[in-house]
C-alpha cells in the first residue's frame, strides 16, 4: 500500500523571536511571569492605544532572510487578521499578509541515505502571538493570560516540497538549528518558542496534482511532528482506499492517543478579513540596513559543516552532527584544536560526550567536562600516556569528579606502562606460570596469543601499552 502513495508536506514553523520586548509594545517577553504581569495597555488592546514596531524584531527577520538566501523585501506591509477570541485582545492579530518581509529562499537538508535535498521556503513574515486561555480551574469561566500576547513571531512557510515525515523533521531541525545559530530564537519547544503546523496530503505516485490537504496545528516536538504526520498519512490513505474523500480541514494532534482529530472544516473556517493595518506605516528596509545585518551574520551551519569536512577530513554526516548547534560546533572546534586530532575529537564529542549528555539530560553548555579538559585527555591518548580503552574510565571520572585528565590518571595510577623492562618482566612471569599453554603455543596453537595478552594485561591492571605488549610478547613467546 505505502508504495502506491506519495506524501506531500509543507510546514509552517513559528519561531518566537528572542527580543527583550514585544513586537508592538514595550512589555517584557520573558517566559514564566505571573499571569498578565507582562501585559501593558497596548497588549490589553486598550482604547486609544497604538502599536509601535520593535526594530529588533525586524533585524531578526532580516537575519533569517539572509541566512536562507532569500530576498528581503524593501517594503512590506502589516495587515490585520480579524477574528474574535478572548485571548486576542484587539479582536485582530497584526501579521504580514500580502507583502511579507522575507520572500522566497531555500534550505538544504541531508537525508538519511546521504543525499542532499533543497527545500523551498515560500516566505517568512512577522506577526504577533496571541495570549493563552485556560479552561480549567475557573469554574464556568475561562482564565486569560496575556503575557504572551504581542510576543514577536517569525512564521516560516515552506513549499510543499517535503515527501515524508522524516524529511519534515529534518527540515524542521534544520530551521531549528538556523534560528539558534542566528540567535533569533531560543528554540525552546517545551515553552512553545518553536512550534509548527503541518499541511499534509497524499496522492498516488506519478500524479502531478496535489491531493486535498489537512493542516495539523501546533506541533511542539520533533517526535510529535513525525508521529502526527505518519498517522495523518495513514488516515488519509485508508480513507481514500476505502472509497472516501479527504476533507480540507484543520486537525489537532493528540500525543496521548497518537491520533489527529478534526478542529474545524474549510466551511467553518474564519473569514479573517485581512486589510493593511492603518496604524502602522509600511515597513521600509533600506540597503544599508540589510548590509549591516549581513555583516553581522555568524558562520552558518552549512558553511561550517563544509569547512569541517574539508579541513578536518570529517564525513558529511559527522560534520552535520557536529554543526547541529552553534554550541556543539564551538565545543568540537575547541577540542579538535586543543588535541590536534580532529577525527579523534569528533569521535569523542559524538560518542562519549554526547552519550553522557543524553544520559544526564544536559545541554552541551552544561557539560561537566569542558572542551579544554576533553582536549587535555585526548592529548594523553595521542602521546601514549593512556590507552583508548582506559581513556573511557578517565573520562567517566572526569565527568563525575570534574577534574582534569592528568589529575585522574595520576590519582588512579592509570598511567600506561611503556617501560620495556617492566613489560618483559610481566611477560616472563606469565610464561613461567603457564608452561602448558606456552608449550601448546609453541607447538602451533596460535590462538593462544590472545590468552597471553589477557594474562599480561591482568597482571598489569590493563596499563601495559598494547602495541609494545604485542611486540614483546610475540618475540618472547617465540623463544630465544
Amino acid at each position, binding site marked *: 500500500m505505502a508504495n502506491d502513495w506519495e506524501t506531500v508536506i509543507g510546514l509552517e514553523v513559528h519561531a518566537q523571536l528572542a527580543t527583550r520586548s514585544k513586537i508592538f509594545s514595550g512589555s517584557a517577553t520573558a517566559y514564566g511571569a505571573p499571569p498578565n504581569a507582562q501585559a501593558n495597555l497596548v497588549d490589553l488592546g486598550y482604547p486609544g492605544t497604538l502599536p509601535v514596531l520593535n526594530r529588533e524584531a525586524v533585524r531578526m527577520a532580516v537575519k533569517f532572510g539572509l541566512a536562507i538566501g532569500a530576498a528581503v523585501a524593501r517594503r512590506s506591509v502589516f495587515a490585520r487578521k480579524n477574528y474574535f477570541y478572548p485571548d486576542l485582545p484587539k479582536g485582530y492579530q497584526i501579521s504580514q499578509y500580502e507583502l511579507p518581509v522575507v520572500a522566497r529562499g531555500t534550505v538544504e537538508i541531508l537525508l538519511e541515505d546521504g543525499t542532499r535535498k533543497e527545500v523551498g521556503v515560500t516566505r517568512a513574515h512577522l506577526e504577533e502571538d496571541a495570549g493563552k486561555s485556560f479552561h480549567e480551574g475557573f469554574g464556568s469561566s475561562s482564565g486569560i493570560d496575556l503575557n504572551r500576547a504581542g510576543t514577536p513571531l517569525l512564521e516560516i512557510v515552506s513549499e510543499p516540497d517535503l515527501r515524508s515525515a522524516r524529511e519534515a523533521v529534518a527540515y524542521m531541525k534544520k530551521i531549528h538549528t538556523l534560528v539558534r545559530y542566528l540567535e533569533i530564537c531560543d528554540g525552546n519547544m517545551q515553552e512553545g518558542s518553536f512550534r509548527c503546523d503541518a499541511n499534509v496530503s497524499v496522492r498516488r505516485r506519478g500524479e502531478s496534482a496535489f491531493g486535498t490537504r489537512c493542516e495539523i496545528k501546533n506541533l511542539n516536538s520533533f517526535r510529535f511532528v513525525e508521529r502526527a504526520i505518519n498517522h495523518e498519512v495513514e488516515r488519509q490513505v485508508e480513507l481514500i482506499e476505502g472509497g472516501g474523500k479527504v476533507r480540507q480541514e484543520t486537525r489537532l494532534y493528540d500525543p496521548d492517543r497518537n491520533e489527529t482529530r478534526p478542529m474545524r472544516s474549510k466551511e467553518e473556517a474564519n473569514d479573517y478579513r485581512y486589510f493593511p493595518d*492603518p496604524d502602522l506605516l509600511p515597513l521600509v528596509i533600506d540597503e544599508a540596513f540589510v548590509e549591516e545585518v549581513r555583516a553581522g551574520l555568524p558562520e552558518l551551519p552549512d558553511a561550517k559543516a563544509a569547512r569541517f569536512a574539508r579541513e578536518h577530513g570529517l564525513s558529511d554526516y559527522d560534520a552535520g552532527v557536529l554543526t547541529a548547534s552553534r554550541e556543539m560546533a564551538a565545543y568540537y572546534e575547541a577540542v579538535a584544536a586543543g588535541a590536534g586530532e580532529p577525527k579523534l575529537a569528533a569521535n569523542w564529542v559524538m560518542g562519549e560526550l554526547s552519550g553522557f549528555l543524553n544520559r544526564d539530560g544536559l545541554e552541551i553548555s552544561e557539560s561537566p567536562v569542558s572542551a579544554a579538559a576533553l582536549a587535555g585527555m585526548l592529548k594523553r591518548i595521542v602521546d601514549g600516556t593512556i590507552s583508548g580503552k582506559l581513556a573511557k574510565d578517565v573520562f567517566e571520572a572526569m565527568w563525575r569528579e570534574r577534574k582534569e585528565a592528568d589529575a585522574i590518571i595520576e590519582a588512579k595510577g592509570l598511567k600506561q606502562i611503556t617501560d620495556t623492562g617492566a613489560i618483559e618482566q610481566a611477560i616472563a612471569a606469565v610464561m613461567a606460570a603457564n608452561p602448558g599453554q606456552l608449550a601448546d603455543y609453541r607447538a602451533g596453537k596460535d590462538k593462544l596469543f590472545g590468552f597471553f595478552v589477557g594474562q599480561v594485561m591482568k597482571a598489569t591492571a590493563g596499563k601495559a601499552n598494547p602495541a609494545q605488549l604485542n611486540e614483546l610478547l610475540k618475540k618472547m613467546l617465540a623463544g630465544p
Partner: protein
Amino acid sequence: MSLHAATAAEIGRGLASRQYSSVEVTRHFLERIERANPALNAFVTVTAERALEDAKRADLRLARGEGGPLTGVPLAHKDIFCTSGILTSCGSRMLADFVAPYDATVVERLDAAGMVLLGKTNMDEFAMGSSNETSFYGPVKNPWDTARVPGGSSGGSAAAVAARIAPVATGTDTGGSIRQPGALTGLTGFKPTYGRVSRYGMIAFASSLDQAGVLAQSAEDAALVLGAMAGHDARDSTSVDAPVPDYAAGLDRPVKGLRIGIIREFFGDGLEAATGMAVRAAIDAFRKEGATVEELSLPNLPLSVPTYYVVAPAECSSNLSRFDGVRFGHRCQDPKDLMDLYRRSRGEGFGAEVKRRIMTGTYVLSAGYYDAYYLKAQKVRSLINQDFRRAFEKVDVLMGPTAPTPAFGIGAKTDDPILMYLNDIYTIGANLAGLPAVSVPCGLVGNLPVGLQVIGPHFSEQRLLAVAHAWQRATDWHRRIPPGFA
C-alpha cells in the same frame, strides 16, 4: 467686555497681565456651564474640582512668571480623548463606565501647556455621525437654535465654544467632524494634516482618517492650541516627525497674491443657495484684497462620500472589535457562554449607527467582496489624492463651502442615513487625502452661521491659519455670539 466673550488668546493675555486669575476665569466658565449645559447637553462630564485644581496650579505658574499664552485658560476635551481617572465615554453606552487609565498625548500636551480642564464634551457615538444625534447621552442642541443640531461628531465641543461656556475645545475630524460642526455653530474649526497631531489615546474610529484638531473662536486660538498639541509622538507610528512652526507668530503673513482655487464640484445641486452665496461673497472679498481666484475641477471628488463609506466602516469594524466585554467596556449580565457574551455585550453596548457601520465594514472586507469594495475604494482614494495634488500645483489653497446647508432640525435626517452622510460631502475629501483644512464663519443665513472651508496642501497649517486670520481681521462673523449666550 465680559470674560466669556473673550477668545482663548485674549483670556491668556488677561491672565498674563494679571487682570484676573485662572481660578476666577475657571469659576466663571463653570457657572456658565452649570446654567447653560442642561439646555445644550454639550458636556458629558464636568470636571469642576479638577478644573479648580488645574487653575490654582496655573495661577502659581503665572505668579512665578512662568507658563505660556495658554496657561490658565480653560478648555474642554471631546470625550474621545482618554483622560486619566475621568470617564471617557466616546458617546457610547459601551464605555459609559470606562474611566481611562491614562492620558492621550493631546491631553498630556495641553495639560503641560497649563490649560484648565473644564470637562468632556458630548459627541456622536464613537464619532460616527454628523449631527450629534447618535450619542448615548442624547443629542446636543445648537446654541443658535436649540431645535437644531450643532453638527457632528464633535457637536458637544462646538456647542460649548459657540455658547461661550468653554473658550476653546478639542475635536476630532474623520470625515468633517470638526469643520462641519464648526460651520454649523459659527466657529473656527481646524483639522490639521494627517499625522500632525498624535492619535495616541484618541479612541479610534477610522485610523487612516482620524485627526485631532480644534474648535475655536478664532484662527488665533486655533493657532495657539494646535501649536501646543501638535508634534511627533513616538507612541503613534503615523505621527510625522517634523518640526512644529510657531503658528501664532505666522498669523499675520500677508494673503496678497494668494492663489485661490474654487472647487467647481462643490457648487453643484446639493448646495443650498443662500449658503453658496455667502461662500462666494467671502471668496470675492479675498479677490478684492489682492488674491487671484481660479475655478478648478477635481473630477474624482464627487466619489468622496462612497469611498469614505467603504474605507471608514472597514477600519471601524476592526477597530471596534476590541469592545468584546472581556477586558473593559460594557459587559452583559450573566453571559451563558462566550458567544452570548460577545453578542449581548456588543448588541447592548453599541447604538444603531455604530452597528450599521460595523456591519458595512465587515461586509466590504469579506472574502469575495474585498476587491470590489475596499480595494476599489483605496484606488479611488489615491485618485482623489492625485486630484488635490494637481490642484495644488496651480493654487495655494482651495475654497468652498464646509457644509451644504446651515444647521438642520433635530430629527430631520435621522431616518435617512444617506441624507445624513451627504452632510460631509465637502469635508470628506480632505480626510481621504490627509490634507489640513479649516472652516471659518462667513455669514449668517436666517440667523444660522455658514462656514467657508479652506483646504491646503500637506503641512500648510500656517498658510491656512494666516488666511483664516486675515479673513477674521476683515470681518466679525467669528465674534458673533448666539442670542441668549452673550
